């Protein structure tokens, strides 16, 4: 006979998630990443709001979240060179660092998240993990299931090589992350 209260466990899980998401948003802010937290119904709208100018994207692998109409998927070379924003999914996020993990597949997530000056990443709230150790457990499972290439992105590309810190060096100069709550519980 179960001695634990399922409802209490749910609550506990929920509290932990809330904490991880708050931590993620703080760390992301330190890394010059903007974050938006939205319920699933408003996800597409939030993505649209984060987009600057013309946008390219890679189809999101989520059942419940879709890209706004105006995002051009399967972009050409020219699309990539002229677009102002690139939108991709993140497999997970790491709260303690403000990092998002972008898998690269044949769907061009690599160039989409690298060429346009603004990068938008979409992550599900339940995929925000508290720390690097947990993230690597998840990563190892993803690799077991066939993922090959993942980029941990923590803020925009930058360099200090020219005498002081400059953002946007062979990569985006702004990064924005949309955290999508699919539980309907909110925070």
């Amino acid at each position, binding site marked *: 006979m179960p001695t634990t209260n399922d409802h209490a466990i749910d609550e506990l899980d929920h509290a932990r998630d809330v904490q991880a998401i708050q931590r993620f948003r703080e760390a992301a802010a330190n890394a010059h990443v903007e974050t938006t937290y939205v319920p699933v119904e408003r996800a597409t709208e939030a993505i649209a709001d984060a987009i600057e100018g013309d946008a390219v994207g890679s189809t999101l692998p989520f059942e419940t979240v879709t890209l706004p109409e105006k995002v051009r998927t399967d972009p050409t070379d020219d699309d990539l060179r002229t677009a102002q924003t690139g939108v991709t999914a993140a497999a997970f996020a790491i709260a303690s660092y403000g990092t998002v993990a972008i898998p690269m597949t044949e769907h061009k997530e690599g160039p989409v998240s690298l060429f346009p000056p603004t990068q938008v990443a979409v992550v599900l709230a339940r995929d925000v993990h508290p720390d690097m150790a947990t993230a690597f*457990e998840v990563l190892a499972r993803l690799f077991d299931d066939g993922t090959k*290439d993942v980029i941990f992105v923590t803020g925009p590309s930058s360099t200090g090589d020219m005498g002081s810190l400059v953002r946007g*060096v062979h990569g985006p100069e702004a990064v924005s992350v949309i955290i999508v709550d699919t539980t309907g519980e909110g925070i």
Partner: protein
Amino acid sequence: MKSNTTREETRAHIRHLLAEEGDTVFENTSYLNDARYELVGELGADYDRLKDRARSIKEEAIEHLPDLIETLTERVEANGGTVYVAEDAADANQYITSVCDDVGAESVVKSKSMTTEELEVNDALEAVGIEAVETDLGEMVIQIADEAPSHLVGPGLHKSRTEIAELFNTHFDPDEPLETAEELTEFARDHLAPKIEAADVGMTGANFLIAETGSLALVTNEGNARKVVESNDTHIAVAGIEKILPTLEELQPFIELIGRSAGQSTTAYTSILTPPVATPTMPFDEGGERSFHLVLVDNGRMAMRDDEQLRETLYCIRCSACLNSCANFQHVGGHAFGGETYTGGIATGWETGVHGLESAAEFNDLCTGCSRCVNQCPVKIDIPWINTVVRDRINRSDTGTFDFLYEGLTPDAESGGLSLRKRLFGNFETLAKLGSATAPVSNWLANRRESRLLAEHVLGVDRRRALPEFQRTTFRDWFRSRERPIIEEPMRRAVLYPDIYTNYVSVERGKAAVRTLESLGVEVELATPRSTGREPLSQGMISTATERARLIHADLADTIDEGTDVVFIEPSDLAMFTDDYEKLLPKEAYQTLAENSYDVLEYVYGLLENGADPAELSADDESLMYHSHCQQRTLGVNTHTVAVLEELGYDVMTSNVECCGMAGSFGYKSEYYDLSMDVGDELRGQLVEAGDRRLVASGTSCTDQIDDLVGENPIHPIEVIDPERRKGETTT
């Protein structure tokens, strides 16, 4: 023996670099060093756990290296790539150029890789008419300037913004001269973007390789490494064999440590790729097939693995923490403190392993053994020890000519051609005995102008340094001739170690220690005054140091077994007992000495904690400026000094420089005098800022340096609390 011309050349080279690059290097390294302290501090206790884990993963990985190479090769091949294990640079370059040739490459774009610098891949490519384009902005700067990297992480860290602007304006002659960092970055990016797209081959290094998945990890802030990989069908990754980790999960501690150790919480990108990557190559409509070549470079590494002393070097993840935390490096940079490829203290290990002893000999002197880097290394490499070992090997490979003249002065256990100066510094004990026995005549003779000129000319002892003034009545003479107080039921029994300086030169601090300990109820004996081996060890004279360590152990073992503690006035001698002896003595002997040894103020702290009565100590509300010794800080015993002084009412301000710049005999050497004073300048600033606070320092060499810097001789903290001082002050 190092000839006078070489010494002259070294001095001139260092002066030149101090003037040309010193300020920029200092600004950048000290910024990164401060950031590192803050970032690792945020980790709290996790920091040590991560370091321990990283260390043990590396130990295991190097132990099983041949198996890991095999597993990795199988995986990469199963993934559709090729692996080539290159024996040396020529072999690697031959393979790389043939791959480029096979795809008809005209140009290769590269992301930052120290290993390709080691191999001089760019030269090899250019020799067969292939253009090599560095796309990391720092690398691009030094490629244009035609210089070598001056730092493991920031290759162009010695160049200021204005210098880069000048370089670009001359080299590219843009319509509008470039000025700001933004303009320079934008220009460089726009210059490189078409080159990256037009290239035929993308070449990267690898910060880590994962055997079980055949993946590589690239840690970067710029997007260039990603672009280089994504935009080119042919990907060549060049990495030393030591980069292999067994599993993906074992990458975790390294990812957490590498950025922080370099002074950044984490880099913008950590790419974990399993090439050939799945991303389609741009331009998409040309739809080329991706290919991947992993070049695993041995180039001396397998031999390093078999070399008990150099093996640790292979754990290095090239984070640069040991460069940024090194006072000498901060001031002179990697163009003096580095060999053919690698820079900083750990470069001694790398250069010896991959380029040979001669390359390390060029700069190995610049590691003074201050030990500040030891706790900063994420894989806990004993960097000063590697420097000592290599110094010993250099000594043995030299051929000296004058040695026989000085055999009497240098009763050491060294064979081979050791330079005269090394012998002299290494045998300071003999010199001190002689100097003391003949004082004051010896002091008078030593300080005559002719003697100083001769000393500088033959020995390279800088004439601007004050020489130690030997005392005719040694500390031991005083101890033996005085009337011993009777201590009823002593709280502890201690044997005070009279280091050479305390015994022959700074006798007062010895007396203060005896009086202080006795007033706290300790029965004090004196150990036989003999060298701990610190002076010979600093000259790389390992056998002499080992012999001294054995004698000391024989002296003290029984006393310690009877429950007596060993107390030190000189921090660097304490560090010998608690740290270096681990390498010189059998395990048990080392443990006996290490576990029962204390810094004198640490000991006082312990006594007070255990209820000793401080009534007789000199307590005051005097304002002090305390400079602790670098090795005290590494051992973490400096805090006790401050705690004791504060408990007695003193108002204590502390310095926070990594090292005073003197570092034993280093600052006495004529070719390093300028550097030593330049390093000391930071401390001078802090001392001046301290106003009329009384100066206090624990180490002998710090004391000498401070005297030279501000013309005031600091006293040892034990002299501050000396009961005699209290009496003296109350009677006046």
